[in-house]
């Protein structure tokens, strides 16, 4: 990845941000069908933050993304030969007005609001949808793995107590790939791939990315204000302790998807050249779809979630804990049948910091369904340990070593991501800052786990950063 970051601060309260990033990533082992061997991406971000008055602040930024991927030659993706793809999209990033009057503050626009106290896995960080385009959120990521969305936040803050109420007027899904990517959701189960294989024939590669959220979240709730979500959080901070409680009445961003089983079987048969099955199913499926039958039935449910979290400073560490409970969330059983089940999400962790040289975070987190079944990705309950350690050896100027680890406690699955970054000394304080970084992503796991499903995506990346 190559990055150019330019930030200009004027004497007044106006800050202009211009940022360019590019990434290149290579597959370490061509060990699965239709994998991309090389992926590259660039990202330009332009923005401005300015104070319109003593009480009003404005922030707006946008990003131009481009990405290109090259598959291994001769591979097939679904029903068509795998192709190199390149696409470009423009995105509105954070764009908000913040106005305060006394203890009241009003934030309106496209916002990121992150609740909870955990860094790596936060059960109470529920307001913004996740960005899965580059895979599941990676431990040790240097950017927030969430997307800004339209919302309105009213907060009232006093010395001892804070109260926030957030209203999201529209349903916003997670952003990810349903197909056409090494990180596509259909790779969670091979039988799902066939259901979306037709997109390779019907859709231009340059439009594929724009189509992915629609494929991943069919039939979303319409953009009426009545389909909004609301959440509230109350907290206190002081004397070494942060304590918060929250409740939300919001859309579950995991839809209940039921694919036409015969269509799925038909597409899988087509992919595997299973002619007898094709001939048996086609006469039954084709008329049904021609008469208006749905290939995929999708339902979206609202979820009531209550959570508490706390962080306390104890000597050299900060100890953190979170728990969130819901009477019903969408889970998929191992048979791919969606169910609504009560569940607890939880996390505990510690932060440790030794001057600037060494810092570490260790978190244990999990999901405990309160209805016994065997669930996709979570089994009968999921728990994992995740940690990030950063080391800046004082003896070597500009070196930063980061090691991020995830290890499942309830299944055989793990992920590791070591990175070494080096910034050579600058001639002066105003000179450009160059950073060269190299890293690995290694993951593996048994079938039915996230690391196992994407275990073929081991990769090495190279990153260059240039900043003022």
């Amino acid at each position, binding site marked *: 990845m190559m990055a150019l*970051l*330019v*930030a200009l*601060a004027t004497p007044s*309260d106006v*800050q202009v*941000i211009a*940022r360019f990033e590019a990434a290149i990533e290579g597959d370490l082992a061509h060990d699965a069908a239709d994998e991309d061997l090389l992926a590259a991406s660039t990202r330009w971000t332009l923005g401005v*933050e300015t*104070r319109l008055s*003593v009480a009003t*602040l404005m922030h707006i930024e946008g990003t131009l993304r481009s990405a290109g991927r090259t598959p291994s030659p001769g591979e097939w993706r679904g029903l068509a030969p795998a192709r190199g793809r390149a696409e470009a999209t423009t995105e509105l990033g954070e764009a908000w007005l*913040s106005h*305060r009057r*006394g*203890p*009241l*503050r009003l*934030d309106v626009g496209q916002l*990121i609001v*992150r609740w909870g*106290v955990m*860094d790596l896995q936060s059960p109470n960080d529920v307001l913004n949808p996740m960005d899965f385009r580059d895979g599941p959120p990676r431990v040790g990521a*240097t*950017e*927030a793995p*969430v997307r800004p969305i339209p919302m309105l936040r009213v907060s009232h*803050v*006093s*010395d001892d107590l*804070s109260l*926030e109420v957030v209203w999201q007027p529209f349903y916003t899904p997670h952003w990810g790939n349903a197909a056409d990517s090494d990180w596509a959701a259909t790779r969670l189960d091979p039988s799902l791939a066939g259901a979306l294989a037709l997109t390779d024939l019907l859709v231009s590669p340059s439009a594929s990315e724009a189509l992915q959220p629609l494929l991943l979240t069919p039939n979303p709730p319409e953009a009426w204000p009545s389909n909004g979500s609301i959440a509230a959080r109350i*907290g206190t*901070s*002081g*004397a*070494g302790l*942060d304590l918060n409680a929250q409740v939300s009445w919001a859309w579950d961003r995991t839809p209940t998807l039921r694919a036409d089983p015969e269509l799925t079987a038909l597409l899988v048969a087509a992919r595997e050249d299973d002619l007898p099955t094709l001939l048996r199913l086609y006469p039954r499926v084709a008329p049904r779809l021609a008469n208006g039958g749905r290939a995929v039935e999708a339902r979206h449910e609202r979820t009531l979630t209550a959570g508490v979290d706390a*962080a306390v*400073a*104890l*000597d*050299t*560490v*900060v100890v953190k804990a979170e728990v969130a409970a819901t009477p019903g969330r969408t889970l998929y059983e191992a048979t791919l049948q969606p169910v609504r089940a009560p569940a607890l999400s939880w996390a505990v962790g510690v*932060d440790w*910091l*030794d*001057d*600037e040289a060494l810092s570490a975070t260790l978190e244990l987190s999990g999901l405990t369904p309160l209805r016994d079944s065997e669930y996709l990705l979570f089994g009968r309950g999921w728990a994992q340990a995740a940690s990030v350690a950063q080391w800046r050896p004082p003896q070597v*100027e*500009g070196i930063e070593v980061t090691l991020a680890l995830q290890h499942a406690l309830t299944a055989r699955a793990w992920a590791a991501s070591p990175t070494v970054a080096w910034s050579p*000394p*600058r*001639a002066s*304080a*105003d000179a450009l*800052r160059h950073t060269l970084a190299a890293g690995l992503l290694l993951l593996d796991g048994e079938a039915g786990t996230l690391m196992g499903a994407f275990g073929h995506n081991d990769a090495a990346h190279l990153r260059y950063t240039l*900043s*003022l």
Partner: protein
Amino acid sequence: MNRPRLTRWALCAAMLLSLPTPAAAQTPDAAGLVASATARNGFGFDHGTARVRLSITGGDQAPKERVLRARTLRGSTGGARTVLRFLSPSEVQGAAFLLVEQPGDAPDDMHLYLPALKRTRRIAGSQKDGSFMGTDFTYADLEYRDVKTAAYSPVAEASLDGVPCWRVEARPTAPAAGVSRVVLHIRRDNGLIQRSELFGAEDRLLKRYSLRDFATVDGQPAPSDAEMHTVETGRTTRLTIDEVDTRTPLDPADFTPESLSRG
């Protein structure tokens, strides 16, 4: 005709009476002297905003510079709340730090907002001994922790580079970060700390704070140019303060962890 003359004499007498008593006339109490010198934060004011430039030079590292906006509010319970928001360079731009002083010996509350992650994190109390944003100052230095809760030596007269000072030695009652004693030189003309030397084990000099220049803000002296030198690394952080504004009202709601994400 005599009345104006009498008025002038009265004014002159009043002015003479209002002049400070010659400092050498009496030696101040050590605790009171230190309390007065550290009443305001490391940026020299206890209510207001300022632009602060941190320049790091020397040692075996390349020079660095950081610019931040500092805001301090004296809370209703007496403890100060300070928000530091980084303006440049880009790798720290948008980061914000909140320090809430707690009464007595209770550790202060500290929170750090990380803009890339959109997260506000609590920082442990003993992490105050850590470097403040990569500078030679620690969080503890900025709140004078090692000299505020300490046993003091008797105050002595001293002269530092020709500047008349009071010399007082502070031995922290809860030593941390290896600081065993701090030798303070406090200017006799305005009460600012002219030099502060932090000693560690075996009475080895660890760091030296030096006042380079000061300004008058709303009739009160305040440091405008100072530096902290770390002996072991040979590195120096110079702290330049300008654009001080103590008149614009500040809102307590801007001094909370929740507000750190909004400039």
